[in-house]
């Protein structure tokens, strides 16, 4: 099982430091979800192990080896990344896109082995994209398109998969679709998954491990029940809330309070 660990991480764009002195151990074989307010550095944190950003200080180790020192193809066999809203060239079919996921496993003389074909077919099946395999990606609906990209990452057959806001721009049904698919990948194939999610309640339901970030630091991490409590949510998202129990999953359910529309406010309006 692959172990992803970051130590003393400092991430910056030019001189603007986004993440400072951060340590993180991703629990192997589980789903970790990074949550936090906008611009807290959660997507940036995902970019470091994905080697989309070189740390100014600190290290990211995958099974004890630095991802920034290892040959990039070697890393790509063990760690897949799906960036936020990727764009495929117009006319590229789903199967062609998913086939690109095999490139770290290919050499110039071995471009399409039986193993490649099997991996692509099983990725298409896992994401329920087999029927749409010959359709151009740009003609699909938002949810189908996202599944096609996830299929590409699945075909890469990496033990660790990083997903940056995989539910952005999707309607509710497709969000749940994609998240259920992520759980399938984790349970059936034992992949370690780290993703950034915006919706705290979805994070609670789908994460084994929640990592809450604020201003480039990890404020709390642990099981949803440990992390998602009113005091931490208030600190991280700067919003007062109540936490109850999700009637479907039994995980924490966050209900923000806000200034208006509370029952006490309504009652006082009635009595006036």
């Amino acid at each position: 099982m692959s172990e992803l660990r970051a130590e003393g991480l400092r991430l910056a764009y030019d001189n603007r430091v986004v993440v400072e002195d951060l340590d993180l151990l991703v629990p192997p074989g589980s789903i970790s979800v990074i949550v936090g307010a906008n611009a807290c550095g959660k997507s940036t944190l995902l970019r470091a192990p994905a080697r989309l950003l070189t740390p100014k200080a600190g290290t990211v180790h995958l099974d004890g080896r630095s991802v920034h020192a290892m040959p990039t193809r070697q890393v790509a066999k063990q760690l897949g990344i799906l960036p936020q809203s990727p764009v495929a060239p117009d006319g590229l079919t789903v199967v062609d896109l998913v086939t690109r996921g095999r490139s770290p496993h290919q050499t110039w003389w071995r471009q399409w082995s039986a193993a490649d074909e099997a991996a692509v077919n099983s990725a298409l099946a896992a994401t329920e994209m087999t029927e749409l395999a010959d359709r151009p990606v740009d003609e699909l609906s938002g949810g189908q398109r996202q599944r096609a990209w996830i299929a590409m990452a699945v075909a890469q057959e990496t033990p660790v998969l990083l997903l940056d806001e995989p539910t952005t721009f999707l309607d509710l049904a497709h969000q749940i679709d994609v998240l259920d698919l992520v759980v399938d990948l984790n349970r059936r194939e034992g992949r370690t998954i780290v993703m950034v999610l915006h919706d705290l309640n979805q994070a609670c339901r789908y994460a084994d491990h929640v990592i809450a970030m604020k201003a480039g630091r990890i404020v709390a991490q642990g099981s949803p029940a440990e992390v998602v409590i009113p005091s931490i949510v208030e600190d991280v998202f700067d919003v007062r809330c109540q936490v109850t129990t999700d009637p479907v999953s039994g995980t924490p359910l966050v209900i923000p309070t806000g200034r208006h529309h509370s029952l006490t406010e309504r009652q006082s309006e009635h009595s006036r």
Partner: protein
Amino acid sequence: MTAAVAVRVAGVSARVRPRVVGTALVLAAVAFLLFCLGMTIGDYPLSVGKVVAALFSQGDYYDRVVVYDWRMPRALCGLFVGLAFGMSGAIFQTITRNPLASPDVIGISSGATTAVVCGIVLGIGAGLGTQTLGLVGALGSALLIYVLAWQRGTTGYRIVLVGIGVSWACTSATSYLLAQAKLYEAQQIVGWMVGNLNDSTWAQATPLLIAMAVLVPLTIAMSGWLRALHLGDDVAIGLGTPVQVARLSLLIVGVGLVAFGTAAAGPVAFVALAAPQIAKRVAGTPVPPLFTSGITGAVVLLGSDLLARELMPDTQLPVGVVTGVLGAPFLLWLLARANRAGSGG
């Protein structure tokens, strides 16, 4: 969309699209036909059969002399300049992810032109000849674009923007120098600037052939990087592509191709821009197919040169005039047709 077929022989495997391979073969046959047809034209008329016989060292001694010594340099220049421009266009359109990017748009051809005009008007490096000057100019402007576009690595977008700026700077410099030039110099410059094969001899063809023998295999070896870059930098890195190294290497071979092509024939308009887009539509691929783009470039250039000589046998019409006149409406037609079918871009 074209289906792909798995081909696996003794550990070697490939995913082959019959339509792409078929298109490449047909275009290669057309290019060879045009290559031979071009060598039939001249004061000493030859049939296609005689040209082909001469190519394989058969037939009349005089035919062989005419073919090898007089006519082949022009045909070879047409073939390889077209190949170079077509492949280079495919590279630039891929690394910038922009179908309108081509070496003539992003300032590499204009850099070559400025260097040549500098040489002729100001006498800078006059001993070097237009070929070397064109080469130096193309490489110089490419280096300038890369350095100016560098900001924690390069992105395709910045290369296009900076390239357009460099292109305009070079064009202004060229115009200024032209205004200073003497009449006979201006004539010489304009003849070169349009791009033509009229003066092609072995002196132009030999360095071009040597350069292509190195650059074409190198480019094809890098086609895997091109495939990954189509998906954008982040996805390409995730798939294990060394993006900065890949882009710089592709930029170098792309510039090399266009530099040696321009040195041999001048900045022939439109070929690098149009050939990859034509190839993409004919082969039915979502992105410009590298080698097919090259062959398409050769067909366009050889065909245009043939047309120029057939239509106006008495005037020495530069091939660049024909590629401009033909290429523009053809590309517009392709775009209009593709948009109606709902697959534009």
